[in-house]
């Protein structure tokens, strides 16, 4: 199955997946630019893939260390860049709220 000639990126939907809030002007700009870029990428469709896999030969063998606790960052260090903190915790927006 080839890449559909008419594939268009739905910027609204993708922005939601990507957790990005975009201005209307950004949405329009990206819709045009990204669709131009996608047209260019259609060249990949012509390549004869054969039986090639996606295995990465640059990866070495898996290396594991022994499961022993060791020194890490202190709680204070971990919280040091937090925008909001309460009682030694990160504060986040409520997930369960009023509907």
């Amino acid at each position, binding site marked *: *199955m080839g*890449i559909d000639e008419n*594939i268009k*990126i739905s*910027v609204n939907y*993708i*922005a939601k*997946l*990507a*957790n*990005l*809030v*975009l201005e209307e002007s*950004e949405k329009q*700009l*990206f819709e045009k*630019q*990204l669709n*131009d*870029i996608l047209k*260019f*990428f259609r*060249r*990949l*469709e012509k*390549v004869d*893939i054969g039986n*090639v*896999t*996606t*295995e*990465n*030969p*640059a*990866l*070495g*063998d*898996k*290396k594991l*260390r022994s499961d022993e606790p060791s020194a890490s*960052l202190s709680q204070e*260090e*971990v919280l*040091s*860049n*937090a*925008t*909001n903190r309460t009682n030694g915790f*990160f504060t*986040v927006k409520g997930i369960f709220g009023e509907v």
Partner: protein
Amino acid sequence: MAFDLNSLTLTTAKRALAEKKLSATELTQACLKRIKLLDKKINAFITITEEKALVDAKRADDLLAREDNSPLLGIPFTLKDVFSTKNIKTSAGSKVLESYTPPFNASVYQFIEDAGGVLLGKTNCDAFGHGSSTENSDFGLTKNPWDIERVAGGSSGGSAAALSYGGGLFSIAEDTGGSIRQPAAFCNVVGLKPTWGLISRYGCIAYASSLDTVGPMARTVEDIECVMNIIEKRDPLDASQNGKPKLRFRKNQKVTIGVVKDFSGRNNDPEINLAIERGIQFLREQGHTIKEVTLPKVAYAIECYYLIATSEASSNLARYDGVRFGNSREIFNEENKRRIILGTFALSSGYHDKYYLRAQKVRNLIRQDFKRVFQEVDVIASPVSPVLPFKIGERVTDPLQMYLADIYTVSANIASIPALSLPCGFSKAGLPIGWQFLGDFYSEALLINLGFQYQEITDWHRKKPTL
């Protein structure tokens, strides 16, 4: 004591420090003086660590007096601002991390500190590495010291420009699609993108994890070797680190050099083609064998790169949620948002196989091309950029045009192979031209060997900009 910062290299500075011809404090002060004089114009630095540098230089002088022979003792250097430096602001060139101060050090930074290096500051870059000109930095662009109406290249423009004007004797930067090599070529310095996995990436702010490669920039190939000896240390904190460089430096080793037929046929600036042909001729006269090779699948390297890189970036940049660190995601700049959107699309349900997976498969075809060619030749010589350093603003409004100019550099990242970028001439208007040597996995010593031989018979790398 009098010395000329312009003509110093890491290697000659080490000798001068050992022979007490200059002190670490004098050297650091000279670099800081250059930075103060020039950086308002060039904007190579995001953060200058003046106080720390002077303290470290003084400590280096005390150790030098006691005959301490730490390999980088007293040598001033810079770090691209993607490397975490404990208690020193680290922004990745982005306002999202404008006030981020890491609680830990990147491993390569730690290795250099342990070897006695003196950190001068953190250099400017395209935000999160997204760019080839440093025009996408949220802290202003970096101008090219050779012509301030032109870009320094990217994404490590700050590192290259600082090195070029005397703000340090080496820099550590990072190359995902050419970000060390292209600014090195634009600013007349040397830059090495090592084999993926050789150098620890712990503490390097991630852009695209299967492409990101940490590497050195310096004034000479000899200096590059010196820095590599320090930063290629084994690091238990990077589980992806593997392999080690084959061979050590073998002086005057003659090699077979591949020239890619398709590369010179493209629309390169003719002055670039001329400089490279001349370089090839020099090497032929030195006794190296030149052979024409083909890399047909490299024609698809840009598509592969921009699909894989943006997909991996969309995942890596998901961590910037404004909760544990950093500002809100709305502050990502236009290029960041564009790449996140493209990458999220390429990975999304219904399109993942057609785009991301296909790009990874074509990637392996490109790898196979290189593997075949490296059975015929030891090294490939190629342009770094199809264009000379371009004017500020010339390409930034057309993202596809900007992406296409990465054609010569992305293939090394796609194939995970090492590549050394070094000066090979100047245009009639005095703009630097660089070329690169690519090698098989872990062939850094071969590239350095050839580069060293080339720099013995040329002096492009000794020229400095007039500022």
